[in-house]
């Protein structure tokens, strides 16, 4: 999708949070933008790509988050403003440079924009990136809405330069994927002429230098607090002697709840970490009871508890640890209102449920698209390996195939190959066939494959190569031959890489050719070493966008015995009507169901 940044003519526009962040990045005169796709962060880089040429910005989809952050660090050390964009779990991949970066510090302003995902809308965990900022000892900004996200990222670059530290911007799903009216400013040209200045004591983290820089970092902690003391995103309104302290978007939920309740309750809204000691202690000294409202970890709550020991030891402190605010999932005004009402003995709103919705509705989980080649690959895999084999898998659209029985694990990016190796080394004797998408393979699958080859893991690795990063919105990657801006570049061949890393058997197959795919899996299974099967077929959505049209298929009712074999395959284009199968208008003509039907009842529409 192309996000329209340029069309911002009026100074107020209806913008997606991520586009507002992108706009802030442009306004700040940033020269280098890096990132790896991940929901809910991807649109930031996508929105900037079309402006790379016009504003002289280097924008890239990096191979993974570690590469992304390191590229951005290099640019900052050379003196330009740079930003690296990722989702929360991406920061785990980039944690190695991130932690030491706090020691070295930065030259050009460097912002790491990390989107958290309370409720795991599209993620494998609910980790809280504020913890990372705390862990590294750097400032963190926690926007409540798209406007704050845009304003904060501009400020983040200034703060980063002032403190010579990286700054973490931490939007959440309901900020990144919220839309609202956002006021924007002018776009600045990209800063001064950059030049890397040699300074080994600063950029070479030998132990002796690192010890010195650790001290420098610790000494900066007070400067961080001073700098954040009067930013506009920390606000205190003193009313009655009961109070709430709420961070980021929870602050908006709390404000709305207080308005609805018309309650005489003091409120402190927090937009920074570390929080402002001055405002916090002012509130703590004013109240007898306070509730800390935040999503994810009790980061703010722990901070307030420490401050309260000094400023109000008798304070009654409510929050996650008292069970008033959930630690799992996301908040909304309804929950926050009831939490506040409960604290002040006001009547609670009843949780509304419509029982029929639970009783009669069929679930509608997301599923692989009609004609998606992953479905065909997994069908063939199961045919060749049987349902008793072990099938570690990875992160991508293909994880949606979990009901097919060929997804036994999903841990983190790239873990399929290494988990498969570990399961083998543990002594598991059954066949092991893991699967990983092309983008994920190039992200962190490569070292896993090398590790498997080096340590002689007898496993089969399937690379589901559909020439895109499908799940996050079809971004290009190093195998596609295109960069984020659409420019042509080298295309890495998965087959060549797999051979070079030491696989004993490497075969590429078209999953739409079911028999050939089953036969390839059988050969891979018999291989006594490390086998790699590359199932190569364009993602259905990319195929459609690039104008590929195949003739659809139909069921010849005379031959259909109603055996349901094709229905069980699970393509959303196949339905069952009383006693025979039927193919609906969603059919993309992949032809796989026709190969599954043993009664030759599925035919191409001529």
């Amino acid at each position, binding site marked *: 999708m192309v996000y329209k940044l340029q069309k911002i003519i009026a100074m107020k526009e209806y913008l997606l949070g991520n586009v507002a962040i992108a706009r802030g990045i442009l306004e700040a005169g940033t020269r280098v933008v890096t990132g790896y796709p991940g929901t809910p962060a991807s649109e930031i880089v996508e929105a900037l790509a079309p402006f790379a040429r016009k504003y002289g910005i280097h924008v890239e989809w990096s191979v993974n988050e570690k590469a992304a952050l390191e590229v951005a660090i290099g640019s900052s050390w050379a003196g330009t403003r740079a930003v690296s964009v990722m989702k929360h779990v991406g920061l785990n991949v980039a944690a190695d440079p991130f932690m030491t970066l706090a020691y070295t510090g930065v030259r050009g302003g460097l912002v790491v924009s990390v989107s958290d995902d309370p409720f795991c809308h599209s993620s494998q965990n609910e980790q809280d990136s504020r913890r990372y900022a705390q862990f590294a000892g750097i400032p963190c900004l926690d926007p409540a809405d798209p406007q704050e996200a845009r304003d904060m990222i501009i400020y983040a670059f200034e703060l980063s330069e002032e403190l010579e530290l990286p700054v973490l911007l931490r939007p959440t799903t309901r900020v990144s994927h919220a839309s609202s009216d956002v006021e924007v400013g002018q776009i600045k040209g990209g800063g001064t002429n950059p030049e890397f200045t040699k300074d080994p004591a600063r950029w070479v983290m030998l132990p002796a230098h690192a010890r010195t820089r650790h001290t420098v970092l610790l000494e900066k902690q007070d400067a961080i607090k001073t700098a954040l003391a009067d930013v506009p995103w920390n606000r205190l309104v003193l009313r009655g002697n009961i109070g709430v302290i709420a961070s980021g978007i929870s602050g908006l939920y709390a404000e709305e709840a207080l308005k609805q309740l018309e309650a005489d309750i003091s409120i402190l809204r927090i937009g920074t970490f570390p929080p402002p000691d001055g405002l916090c202690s002012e509130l703590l000294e004013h109240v007898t009871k306070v509730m800390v409202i935040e999503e994810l970890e009790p980061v703010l709550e722990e901070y307030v508890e420490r401050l309260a020991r000094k400023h109000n030891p008798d304070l009654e402190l409510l929050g996650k640890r008292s069970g008033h605010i959930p630690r799992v999932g996301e908040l909304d005004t309804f929950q926050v209102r009831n939490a506040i009402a409960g604290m002040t003995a006001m009547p609670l709103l009843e949780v509304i449920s419509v029982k029929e919705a639970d009783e009669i509705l069929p679930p509608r989980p997301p599923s692989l698209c009609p004609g998606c080649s992953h479905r065909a690959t997994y069908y063939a895999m199961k045919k060749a390996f049987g349902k008793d084999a072990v099938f570690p898998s990875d992160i991508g659209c293909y994880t949606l195939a979990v009901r097919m029985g060929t997804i036994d694990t999903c841990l983190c990016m790239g873990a399929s190959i290494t988990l498969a190796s570990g399961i083998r080394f543990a002594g598991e004797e059954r066949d092991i066939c893991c699967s990983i998408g092309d983008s994920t393979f190039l992200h962190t699958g490569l070292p896993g494959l090398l590790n498997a080859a080096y340590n002689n893991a007898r496993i089969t690795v399937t690379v589901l190569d559909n020439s895109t990063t499908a799940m996050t*919105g079809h971004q290009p990657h190093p195998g596609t031959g295109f960069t984020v801006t659409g420019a042509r570049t080298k295309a890495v061949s998965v087959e060549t890489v797999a051979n070079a890393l030491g696989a004993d058997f490497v075969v590429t197959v078209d999953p739409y050719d079911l028999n050939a795919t089953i036969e390839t899996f059988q050969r891979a299974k018999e291989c006594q070493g490390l086998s790699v099967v590359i199932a190569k077929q364009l993602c259905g959505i990319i195929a459609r966008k690039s104008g590929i049209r195949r003739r659809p298929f139909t069921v010849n009712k005379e031959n259909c015995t109603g055996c349901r074999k094709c229905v069980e395959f699970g393509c959303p284009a196949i339905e069952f009507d009383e006693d025979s199968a039927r193919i609906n208008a969603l059919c993309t003509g992949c032809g796989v169901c026709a190969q599954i039907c043993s009664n030759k009842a599925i035919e191409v529409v001529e």
Partner: protein
Amino acid sequence: MRTSVCDIVLVGVGGQGVILLSNIIGKAALKAGYPVRGAETHGMAQRGGSVMNHIRLGCEYGPLVPAGGADVLLAFEPAEALRYAHYLSEDGIAVVNTYPVHPTTVTTGQFTYPSLEEILRPLQRVCNKLKTIDATKLAADAGNPQAMNVVMLGALSEYIPLREEELIEALSVSVPAKFLEVNRRAFELGRREV
């Protein structure tokens, strides 16, 4: 005390154009001078899953409509209307496209899809007014079944504090010019139907 002028919850199936429609409403609201907050579903759920967007006109708080708070539930699909019925306020209006889209759990025979009657009865009970509309058919009449979301926009326009010109203007900057005629017809058919 009210904290928003009009809270709308839009629900449907990934691929039905829920996000596009929320954006059109958001832009129109901006034209009308309202502060506006929206929450969108991107990512995983879009692969044919159940999708919900919120949009709050004249609101300066968070983007999520609280359960029991929606003034309008605009459902592109009947089962999805019932799935999110708990968002409706007692005084709210449900506008429901009656054309069902069967999830894979139904096409593969694991679950059955309830009758329209079974879906609408509880909906009727929890809100003030229920409006049904065969938007998919009306879109086809307008010249493109894909314009179903715009038929729904036309229907919605009768119940929200935005003027037709504002919505049409936002529509015309959001869809390719060559589809504008069909979309205008779709809007008009939807508006007249309710």
